[in-house]
């Protein structure tokens, strides 16, 4: 089977993720999917902006009461760095260096888990300190839906990368799994793209009212 063929660093093609027709299709299909995801997140942002600070009574917390810079900054750094480490992983994928690719993917996953930990802490904090929940106000619903959808993407992305790492741990790279690794890393970057807008629109703009 051509897709299972063994390679050396010399024979490994220039764009392994697109070297087979199957890979090419997956590559394009995934980009189109990201185009749709863009609209999905834009819709969530639109809702958030329309419902921001829209609470039933003044006793409810608003954006300026809730957010704190240091935690968001830490989360941002974790996610941005994980984006770079997944670039490193793909660099080694293109050089047919499976071990190093796995190492960098592992670091990516670790950083992603760190991000997720911060997010759980953050939500917990809002709940206990401010009684700001999914069901406390329209603002709460919109906030948790937007940020939670992103968090859900992080969870899915992490599971995907971990599954790929475990599944292929023993057999190394081939033209069948190279597109999969590549797409998982694209997905991870897209998660980062969305986060850039979340920290800007939700947190930074939320802080200034």
């Amino acid at each position, binding site marked *: 089977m*051509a*897709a299972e063929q063994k390679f050396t*660093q*010399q*024979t490994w*093609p*220039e*764009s392994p993720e*697109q*070297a*087979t*027709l199957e890979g090419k299709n997956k590559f*394009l299909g995934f*980009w*189109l999917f*990201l*185009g*749709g*995801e*863009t*609209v999905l*997140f*834009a*819709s969530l*942002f*639109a*809702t958030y*902006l*329309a419902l921001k600070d829209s609470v039933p009574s003044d006793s409810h917390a608003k954006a300026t009461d809730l957010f704190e*810079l240091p935690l*968001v*900054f830490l989360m*941002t*750094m974790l996610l*941005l760095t994980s*984006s*770079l480490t997944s*670039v*490193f992983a793909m*660099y080694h994928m*293109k*050089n047919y260096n499976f071990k190093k690719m796995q190492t960098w993917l592992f670091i990516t996953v670790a950083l992603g888990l760190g991000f997720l930990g911060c997010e759980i802490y953050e939500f917990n904090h809002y709940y206990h300190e401010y009684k700001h929940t999914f069901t406390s106000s329209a603002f709460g619903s919109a906030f948790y839906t937007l940020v939670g959808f992103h968090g859900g993407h992080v969870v899915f992305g992490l599971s995907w990368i971990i599954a790929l790492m475990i599944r292929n741990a023993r057999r190394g790279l081939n*033209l069948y799994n190279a597109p999969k690794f590549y797409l998982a890393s*694209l997905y991870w*970057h*897209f998660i*980062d*793209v969305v986060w*850039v*807008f979340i*920290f*800007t*629109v939700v947190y*930074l*703009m939320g*802080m*200034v*009212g």
Partner: protein
Amino acid sequence: MANLQQNSNNPKASYEYRRKKHAEEMRMQVITFTMMIFFTVIAFAAVGAGFSKWFIIPFVLLLAVVQVIFQLYYFMHMSHKGHEAAQLFMYSGVLVGFITILTFLTIIWW
């Protein structure tokens, strides 16, 4: 269906060249990353320093857009050949998304 794409001419000769190209690209990525971190720090600093909101909002939005362009074009390789369809559909998605957000900011009120 033909499974393997024609590989560029002589594999051994192009191998060294490819590695070099990858390494160069990697350097580019690290520079990109540094700038992204830099932009992020400025954005947070601007909010932390407590400038007027009329300055901060357009400023952080601009930084976010630039950063995302970096992410798309360098980290996600949208600058490379073979991404024409990807670009078309990403931009279409951005356009639809932008119109949605514009609507929700202008004609939804109480």
